[in-house]
Every structure is written in C-alpha cells, then in structure tokens.
C-alpha cells in the first residue's frame, strides 16, 4: 500500500528537493525489502533530505551565512523479537548495504523484547491529509539578511539603554522524508519552517541584561513583522534592568504565557510512553483521574493546517487524530507509541515522536483576561517570564527551578526580579491552577498565562 500524496503542495516540493519523492519512497521500501531478504522478520526504514539557509546579522552587517543540505537514512531491523538499528548520511548503495549489515549484526546480540515491532497494519494511516506543512515561498539570502537587519534596527532604536546587540537571525528550513515498514506502510511528506529571532542587550550602572524574542512559522508570510520582533526583544531586555532577588516566601505565582507552555510540557512527559510503562512518572495510573481543575481542558489537534506540531501520521505511520487529552480536569488518554501501548495493554494513540499541537483552555477565561488583567488578579506575588535550568524530577513531580520575572504588588508590576527559584510539586501545582489568561502565546503548545495559588519562592 503506497500512500499517495499528489497534492499541490507536494508538487511544488518536487521542484525544490534534490531527490524526488518517488526516489525516497523507492529507497525506503527498497531497504525494507533488502532487510526481509536478509532474513529479518520485520524492518522499518526512513530516508530524509533537508536543506537550510541561515543568516545571522549583527551590527546591521551579515555575520554568518550558511547554506546546507543533508540526507539521513535510518533503519531498524527485527530478528524475531530482537532488533538492531543503524543510521547513515551516505546514500550510496554500498553505504546502505553496510547500514543494513550493521543493523542486522546488532539484531543478533540484543535481547528478546516481545513488545517491540512495527505498527500493525490496522493502525496505519492510509489516506494522509495534506496539512500544507511545506511552504514554497522562502526568502533568498539577500531578503533574509534585510529582514534580520530590520529586526535588529528596530531593537537597537527601541530605547536609550539598549547598548549592544547579539544580533538577529533568519532561518529557512525545508525537508522531506519517506517512511517504509514491513507491515505495508510507505509514505511521507515535505515540510518547511521559517524563523526570525532577535536578541539585544540593555545596560546601566547595575549591569547588563539581554532580551530575546523570536518566532517560527511554516509560512514565511505568517511571521510577525521583523520590527515587531525586534521591539519585543528590546522591551524584554529593558524591562529586566535593575533586577533583584526577593526574600524567601510562599506566594502565588503567575507564569507568563510563553513559559507556561513548559508546565504543559512537564505534564505531557509524565503521561507519555516510557515514563508510564517504567513506572517512572508522578502521574502513573492517572487515567480517569482529576489532574487539573474542572474548568480546564487540554486539546490536541494534529491536523491543523500549517501547524508547527501537525502530522498526518506519527513516526511509525500510525494515524493521528484530534482529541481531548484532558476534559474538565480529568485525564482522558495518554501519549503512547505502539511499544508503550503493548506494554500497558492499551490502544496505541499514535504518539511515537511526541505530542502534537496542544491547547490549554479554561472555561473561566474571559476575552479580556490579558496579561494586565492576570497581573491584577495575581495582586501580590511573582510573575515569571524566564526559566533557567531544568529542575523537574519526573518520578516524584518535585519542581525546583531558577526563574526571573517581576514582583507584583497592588495588582501592578513593581520591579524586575532574578536570582530566585520557584519550588513545589507538579501534581499539586496542576490542581492549584487558579486561572488561565486569554493572552495565548502561539507555539506548538499554546496556553495563556497560568496563575498558581501558592508556591515557594526562594531568594535571599
């Protein structure tokens, strides 16, 4: 069964890449066939090609110009319930053959793992949607340099205290791949990403602070104006000047939308495959339990046109579908690959490769609950705008992370804060979500700012 993707988008992709889609498909399925011929009971092959243009501008002059193109072939072969994998960047027949040799050799020595194996045929996506993930219109080097310059110029002129620049960069990436499995899947698609980011430094007698802002979109035209990005980066640097620590105290904390997504990420990691079946998650066995307040839902939408985390099928070819991950606070489903699903004796959810576009909603959020309104609601506490370090214990949910942000009192921002940590336990934190703002930050995981009732802020 070959999955046919002859939409307009892939026709234009055909003109862009070095290898045709048909060649990729033939290479991937050819490798699978070769592996089976060698004696493998199953095989999965992935062939991909990608290219990138990256320009970095500093002091309005180009600092770096990079144009690159690469290919990767990865192969997993199964010898009954033993498996071996190999990867190469050399697509010559000789190299592909050595890659098969390497994978096959490994598969003679690894242990027997009865849960491993490719996705079964009935799980596979047979008619993948064209999600417009490939976008042909991309800037050439000159235009990209000019866009980066515009961002930097706007940032450097945004305030007298902007003293130095880390520069602005534009990146253009295109890729395509083909996945073939011995259970009948052959398919793939082309994809694009355009990004613009800027970072500048504000300075005063107290020291230097940097501010950065950036954005990525599938379609170049969907990026904010470079001036907007530059000005935001400058604003973030200026606002950090004269940051100071706080005294250790328990208080409510408001996580700004752009960093609140990381909290959702920690939640998702705890309800994903390996963490669950190894019992190394603070949310093991939580299906059907209340994880968030009743007014909160978490939706997943893999089929958004041009979504940054959209996919018609997962890394195993398993179909993806929109769903409510959390409904009225109650966990409806995990994130499982076929391996995890078999281990847990649950249906596969099509998540080999991670989560798709996620949106956190609260039924209590009003349209005008922007950041200002949320700060008023916080009234007295810490507004977190940056994280430093990782600080999450995935087994216990214990959370202790360096942060910077702003001290809020009387419903207003008083001064910038740094050199403090926020600690708590994630399981408790999720239930203590008091409110979610309407100031949604557009990224693969979207949420408004998140207000948590009580966390320990440690400082001086």
């Amino acid at each position, binding site marked *: 069964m070959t999955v046919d993707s002859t939409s307009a988008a892939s026709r234009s992709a055909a003109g862009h890449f070095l290898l045709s889609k048909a060649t990729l498909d033939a290479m991937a399925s050819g490798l699978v066939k070769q592996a089976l011929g060698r004696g493998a009971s199953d095989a999965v092959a992935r062939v991909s090609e990608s290219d990138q243009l990256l320009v970095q501008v*500093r002091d309005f*002059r*180009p*600092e*770096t*110009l*990079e*144009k*690159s*193109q*690469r290919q990767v072939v990865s192969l997993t072969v199964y010898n009954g319930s033993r*498996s*071996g*994998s*190999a*990867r*190469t*960047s*050399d697509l010559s027949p000789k*190299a592909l053959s050595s*890659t098969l040799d*390497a994978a096959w050799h*490994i598969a*003679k*020595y*690894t*242990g027997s*793992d009865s849960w491993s194996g490719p996705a079964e045929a009935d799980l596979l996506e047979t008619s993948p949607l064209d999600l417009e993930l490939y976008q042909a219109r991309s800037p050439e080097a000159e235009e990209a340099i000019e866009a980066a310059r515009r961002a930097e110029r706007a940032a450097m002129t945004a305030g007298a205290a902007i003293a*130095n620049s*880390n520069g602005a960069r534009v990146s253009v990436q295109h890729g395509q791949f083909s996945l073939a499995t011995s259970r009948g899947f052959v398919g793939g698609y082309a994809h694009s990403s355009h990004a613009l980011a800027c970072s500048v*430094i504000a300075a005063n007698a107290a*020291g*230097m*602070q*940097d501010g950065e802002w950036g954005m990525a979109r599938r379609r170049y035209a969907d990026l904010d104006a470079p001036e907007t990005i530059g000005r935001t980066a400058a604003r973030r640097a200026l606002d950090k000047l004269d940051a100071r*620590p706080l005294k250790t105290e328990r208080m409510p904390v408001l996580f700004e939308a752009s960093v609140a997504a990381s909290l959702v990420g920690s939640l998702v990691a705890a309800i994903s495959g390996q963490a669950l079946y*190894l*019992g*190394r998650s603070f949310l093991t066995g939580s299906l059907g339990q209340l994880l968030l307040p009743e007014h909160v839902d978490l939706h997943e939408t893999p089929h958004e046109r041009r979504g940054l985390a959209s996919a018609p099928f997962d890394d195993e070819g398993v179909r993806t579908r929109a769903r409510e991950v959390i409904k009225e606070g109650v966990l409806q489903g995990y994130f499982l690959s076929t391996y995890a699903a078999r281990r847990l004796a649950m249906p596969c959810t099509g998540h080999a490769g991670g989560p798709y576009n996620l949106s956190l909603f609260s039924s209590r959020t009003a349209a005008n609950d922007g950041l200002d309104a949320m700060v008023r609601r916080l009234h007295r506490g810490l507004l977190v705008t940056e994280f*430093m*370090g*990782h*600080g999450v*214990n995935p*087994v216990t949910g*214990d959370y*202790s*992370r*360096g942060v*910077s942000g702003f001290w809020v009192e009387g419903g207003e921002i008083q001064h910038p804060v*740094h*050199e*403090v*940590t*926020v*600690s*708590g*336990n994630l399981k408790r934190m999720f239930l203590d979500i008091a409110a979610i703002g309407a100031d949604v930050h557009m990224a693969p995981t979207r949420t408004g700012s998140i207000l948590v009732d009580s966390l*320990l802020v*440690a400082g001086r």
Partner: protein
Amino acid sequence: MKGITWGGPAVAAPTTSAKHALETASAYLLHRHDLDEAILLKTLSAMSTSGSDYADLYFQSSHGEVWELREGIVRSATSSIDQGVGARTIYGDETRFAYSQALSVAALEQLAAATRGGMTAGRSPGAAKPSRFQGRHFPPIYAAGDPHHSAEASTKVALLERLERMARLADPRITQVTARLSGGYDIVLVARCDGCLAADIRPLVRLALEVTAEFGGAKEIGTSGAGGRFDYAYFTGELLASLAARAVDMALASLEARPAPAGTMDVVLGPGVPGVLLHEAVGHGLEGDFNRKGSSAFSGCVGQQVAARGVTVVDDGSMPHRRGSLRIDDEGNETRSTVLIEDGVLKGYMQDTLNARLMGVPVTGNARRASYAALPMPRMTNTYMASGSLDPREVIASVKKGLYVTDLNGGQVDITSGQFSMEASLAFLIEDGRITAPVKGATLIGNGPEVLRRISMIGNDAQIDAGIGVCGKAGQSVPVGLGQPTLKIDGMTVGGAS
C-alpha cells in the same frame, strides 16, 4: 600551579606515533574518495579569491554506537555513521559556511562557490594562498584505535548485563536499572588557507547508569557514569563496581532525603563533578566570542580581580585521555593548558581564530564544533579549578549551617547578566561542621562573578570528573571535562521545597 588528580583509574600513556593521525586521516578521508592535497589547495584558493582573512576545510568521519539495557535486557542498539566536509570562509567578522556529505571533487567545487564572496569581500588584502601544505604532528594524548573494534558485540552486551546485576543485587530496594554504553570514533582532517594540514583521531566511550530505588511508597533515582578517550577495555570490573555503588548509594540516600531547605546559606561543593557550577557560572562567560562582542559579564575585565584570592581556573584540552580533550582543536591548532583566572585575576579568554584575531590576542586551541555540519566557536575542553591548600575536612568543619553538594545534575547560565542555575538532586546538610541528613531537590542560583568572589575556602583535592560531561551552546553539544577541589561558597541562594 597545584596539580590535579584524575577521578578514574590510572592509564598508561598512548604509544601511537604522532604521524599516524595525519596519515590515517588522509587515507580515509581523502585518498579513498580520490581527493588529494592538490585538490584541497585548489579548493582553498577558489574559496579565498575575494580577499578573505581565513578559509578552511574540515573533513570528518564519525562512527558512533549506543547499546541500551533496560529491565535486565539489552533492548536496543544503534550504530551510526556520518561523514562530510565543512567549508568556511571568513571576511573580517563575517563567515560564509556550507557543508556537503559527499566527499568528492564536485562537492568541493560547489562548496567553494557557496562560500566565496562575502558582503565585506575585497576590503582587506586577504590571506595569502598556500602553494603547499605543511603537515603538523603533535604527540598523541590518546590511542587511535576504534572502540567499536575493541570488543565484540557479545562483550558489550555482557558488560551491560554485568553492571545491571551489580546494581540490582546491591540492595533489595533497587527495583529498576537502566544502563547505556556508547562509543564514538571520529577521524578529523583540517586543511587551512595558511598551509596547515592537521588531523586527529578521537575515540570516546561512555557508560551511564541509572537506578530506581523504592521503599514505603517513595521512589527515587540515582545516577553515575564514567568514560573518556579510551576503548571499551577501560570499563573494568572494578570500575563497574564503583559505578554501581555510586548510583545505588545516591538512590538510597534520596529515599531518605527530605526536601532541601530554601534560603541563603554557605555551600560546600565536593571535588570533581560539582565543577559543573564553575562551568556554568564562569566557563561560558569566558568564551572569546561573548567577550569580543562585549556581551559577557566578564567583558573588559582582563587584569582585574574577578574572583577571590587563591582561585585559579584553567581550561586544558591537552590532558591525556580526558573526555573533553582534543589533540588539535577543530581549526587544527594544538590544544594546551590555558590559565583563565590566576589567584583571582582574569588573565584571558578561550579563543578561536576569528575572535582571537578580532581581539588581537593569540589563539588558545579552543575552537570546537559539534560536527562538519556546524560552525566552530570558542568552547571549553576540560575546565577546572586548581587545588588550594586546605584539608577538605577543614572546609566542611567550618560550616555551622549549610549544604554539602557532591553531585550536580546540570544547569544553565545567562552570560550577559551572569545569572546561573544548577540542580543538585541529592545533597547533604552540614550542621555544626558535620555532614548530617540527605536532602533533595536543591537548586543553587546566583551570579557568576559574585559567586567567584565569595569562594572563601579551597581544598587541596582537585579532581576532574569521571568523564560524562556534555556542554551545549547555540544548539551544538560537545563532550567536556569538569573539575575542582572541595570549596566553600559563602551565602549562596538555595531553592528548595521547604
């Protein structure tokens, strides 16, 4: 300068000849692909036509493997090969970069076309074009053998199974063991516009262990690891036993640990791996690119007292066998011991060619890149604080109420503000000069330059870590070594849960 001891077993010096690297690399990366020095010279010439300041070609063949054991079985293993050539031309402070995975004359021609003619081209007279190469040979600091061939697949599996047994049987509360054995072998050849031709053959092995302990409804993790530029024979039974013991002890202590206190307190960092704090708080801030741009909290501070007296910080890429070591950096320059801070005074930064030239200082052999497909920049190699004179027990005894940290998982730094954050999943309270109860979840935060000034006691037991450090910068990961003696920092902010 005081010496430094290794965290692992003693190993004899390598005996491979110095010429071997260049011969082997040329045969493997050039001759096998019908390339030769004349073609390289022609390519470099074509890259430098518009008056560039620098141009180089970086050939690399990289072979890696990872074997993973989970729940008693080696469940998966991957072998990977990646090779290619990166071409770089520099005009002033502008870099043009392109790479190819094909090692061929046609690919080199395309790379030359893609990298010549910068925006600021023609403004300077440019570098002279070489008419011949001068091969450079350096005494080896690690053997040139491929770790993959140093053990059969069955031996690798047996090694992991043996480690798993040791850890699992150490205590009935140990319920899960995950172990990962990885091996890498890089053949690198650098051809430069000034006629330098140099090569390096880099083995790298690493064994990482993670155990889970459970008791009374609580579940905690302990970790350990070791490695370096060896082959798999490095992992002796004795080393496996010490890895198992370390991870198990950490997991069991974590079971009993209470949440770390929050607030300001004196912190004693143990020798070796807690050097991660130095790496984050100071190391990145002393990289040449940040200082050339003036964006580091240490910019413009050369010659100033940036740390307490007695603090000496060194970056040394030439230490035999260390994980962070390189015989040549990724621009073909010999690595060496670079004193960054001496007795508290900032002496200089870590440099690559571009930043050294723009700052008017010598290169230091700190140019590193994750692969041919990424741009080099100033990076750390093995970064450590040298020994002081105090007995470590004296350092601990001096603390009335504080924290003793022997393991730091990782952290992050903002080199502009100097803010850093480190995670210690397991630490110990110090009460009246004695190490008492284990505590967990401590985050240490502070300001790098400020913390350096608050180092009040330095022990005489400097050690490099066991060989598992990974450093990330601008999306590029490189292996590094970390080290320090026992030291005391007055009044650090500790973020705990209580």
